[in-house]
């Protein structure tokens, strides 16, 4: 029978199944970071348990780390959390890319970089953006700390089989439209809970043509549509990305693996529990104006009116969001003034994102009202960008060039958007206070954020000129 990739991977990983129970699923890769793991390791210690398969774990520190002056973390509790991860990894034998390690970076950026992320794997991490790894054709999802402890001690999880959903993106992407715009358009069209209870597979011509970096941007934000996992069937693009990476086999063994990966792709005629479609005609460069990722519109539009919404609860949410954001109904999105720009996060801080942003700002200057920072997704991205001279382009334009980490995506470290200020951000969440208490986030693509840094307000990248976003 024709199967989706989701069913193929799931069925292969069932350790035990019984009527009336969730399936006991084997986990191939467990990524770990400093914020959601300390209580899990503590649980192991209290119960005298070991990590079952340290060889299937990989840890790094990203959420809390400073992006400058790494040597001295002022925040005592943050420092404690970082040293706790270090001690835990030593005690339990878990491989760790420490803060001064050349492989350090945001956990969802380094997994693919190192070739740990591979098609057909089940991948978990105590972080909701684990969905990123689905870009490779893996079932990858975020878990809570109790589940982190469960995986550490048993290398398995009890999981009810999720429903499957296909999101088909039809047509070819227009000029200036980026992967970020596709996913923001999907979430805005279908809502932030459309994916609850599902694993999503993205299909269609527009998806097939995307690079691996762009596919990661899309899968990354599956969780913003409520889907715990989102994936894309592997193809030649996937295989070529992985060739030669540290943790994949080489030579003949690689070819054998590659053949196995390609066979995982969803079979012709396989059925999904649900299919939705979006056409590229509906997708222009997108920005958010509200306080969740579905509150966004094409950049040529205006902030919606409350009367545009039918349900009372939506009207209330809209009013509350605009009050928080300090925006007027009906104002053109391009009129929103920006004073902070953040190019970073696991959504858009890979080398290709930095290259795109650099093209936009090359030879231009950051607007005098704007503070702009670039936080590369990993130390590897940072090094490569520096080899290409991209850091110079940013610095000459007036951006700050930082060390890698989550940074202003969630503002757990010192990188904070001041209360009341508007930030053009390439990250994935615009919740109240996400980038600092009172901060006002506008999500957009790297090219759009770069253009906003130059102009000091939101701009339509298609008018700004010369981009191959």
């Amino acid at each position: 029978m024709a199967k989706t990739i989701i069913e193929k991977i799931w069925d292969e990983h069932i350790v035990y199944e019984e009527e009336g129970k969730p399936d006991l699923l084997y986990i191939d890769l467990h990524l770990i970071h400093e914020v959601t793991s300390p209580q899990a390791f503590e649980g192991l210690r209290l119960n005298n348990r070991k990590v079952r398969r340290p060889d299937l774990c990989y840890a790094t520190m990203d959420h809390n780390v400073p992006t400058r002056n790494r040597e001295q973390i002022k925040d005592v509790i943050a420092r404690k959390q970082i040293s706790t991860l270090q001690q835990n990894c030593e005690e339990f034998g878990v491989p760790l890319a420490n803060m001064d390690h050349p492989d350090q970076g945001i956990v969802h950026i380094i997994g693919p970089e190192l070739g740990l992320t591979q098609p057909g794997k089940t991948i978990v991490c105590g972080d909701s953006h684990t969905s990123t790894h689905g870009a490779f054709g893996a079932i990858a999802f975020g878990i809570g700390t109790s589940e982190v402890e469960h995986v550490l001690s048993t290398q398995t999880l009890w999981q009810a089989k999720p429903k499957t959903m296909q999101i088909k993106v039809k047509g070819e992407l227009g000029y200036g439209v980026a992967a970020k715009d596709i996913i923001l358009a999907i979430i805005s069209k279908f809502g932030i809970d459309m994916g609850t209870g599902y694993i999503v597979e993205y299909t269609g011509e527009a998806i097939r043509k995307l690079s691996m970096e762009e596919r990661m941007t899309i899968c990354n934000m599956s969780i913003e549509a409520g889907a715990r996992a989102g994936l894309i069937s592997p193809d030649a693009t996937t295989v070529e990305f992985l060739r030669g990476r540290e943790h994949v086999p080489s030579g003949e063994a690689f070819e054998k693996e590659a053949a196995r990966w390609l066979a995982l792709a969803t079979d012709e005629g396989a059925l999904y529990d649900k299919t939705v479609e979006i056409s590229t005609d509906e997708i222009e460069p997108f920005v958010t104006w509200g306080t969740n990722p579905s509150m966004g519109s094409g950049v040529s539009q205006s902030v919606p009116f409350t009367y545009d919404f039918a349900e009372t609860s939506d009207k209330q949410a809209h009013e509350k969001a605009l009050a928080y954001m300090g925006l007027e109904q009906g104002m053109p999105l391009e009129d929103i003034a920006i004073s902070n720009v953040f190019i970073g996060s696991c959504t858009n801080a890979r080398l290709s994102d930095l290259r795109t942003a650099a093209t936009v700002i090359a030879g231009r200057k950051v607007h005098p009202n704007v503070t702009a920072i670039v936080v590369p997704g990993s130390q590897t991205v940072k090094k490569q960008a520096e080899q290409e001279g991209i850091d110079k382009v940013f610095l000459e334009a007036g951006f700050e060039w930082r060390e890698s980490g989550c940074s202003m995506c969630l503002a757990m470290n010192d990188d904070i958007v001041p209360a009341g200020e508007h930030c053009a951000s390439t990250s994935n969440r615009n919740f109240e206070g996400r980038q600092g208490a009172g901060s006002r986030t506008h999500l957009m693509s790297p090219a759009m954020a770069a253009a906003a840094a130059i102009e000091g307000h939101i701009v339509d990248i298609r008018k700004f000129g010369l981009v191959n976003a």
Partner: protein
Amino acid sequence: MEPINEINSVITPLNQKNVDTDQIISKEFLKRIERTGFGKYLFYHWRFDANDEPIKDFVLNDERYKDSTILVAHDNFGCGSSREHAPWSILDYGFRVVIAPSFADIFYSNCMKNGILPIKLSVDEVESLLSKDVYDVAVNLEAQTVTGVDGVVYSFDIDPYQKNMLLNGWDEISLTFQYEDKIKAYEDKVAQA
């Protein structure tokens, strides 16, 4: 974790949809390495203003709900970040039950692991609960009912496996260790492939 079956309390009506875990527990409070002590930070930026003074019209600051152990909210409660600090703060604050028309997947499962009962009722039923000022209910997990002080009974569905875990307060990891041989067999099979 603490077993849960019968809970009697006034409900705390939080009339909002898409309440995300960043609101439930803000990132500045995630640096602790313990599971406890998060209650005082629950909904911090909705409860307190910039000077740490209580914001009067926020429902958790309403004296009438001071001892409530049941939180009621609108659709898609707990969306966003996977942080288990969200249910930890809810539990530590004193809630044992959360009622909503729908929950985000990770949050829902995180509740289950901590002895918090997440109850899904229909939109109409939740709206009727949210419209009441002060309303006492009796939750019974065994019977899968929420009974109002006025005698109105709301029934809810829950996965039998999850129900059993909550009723008994079982530790899932110990249970999984009973399948050790199956896990070993799976690993051997993979190693040979």
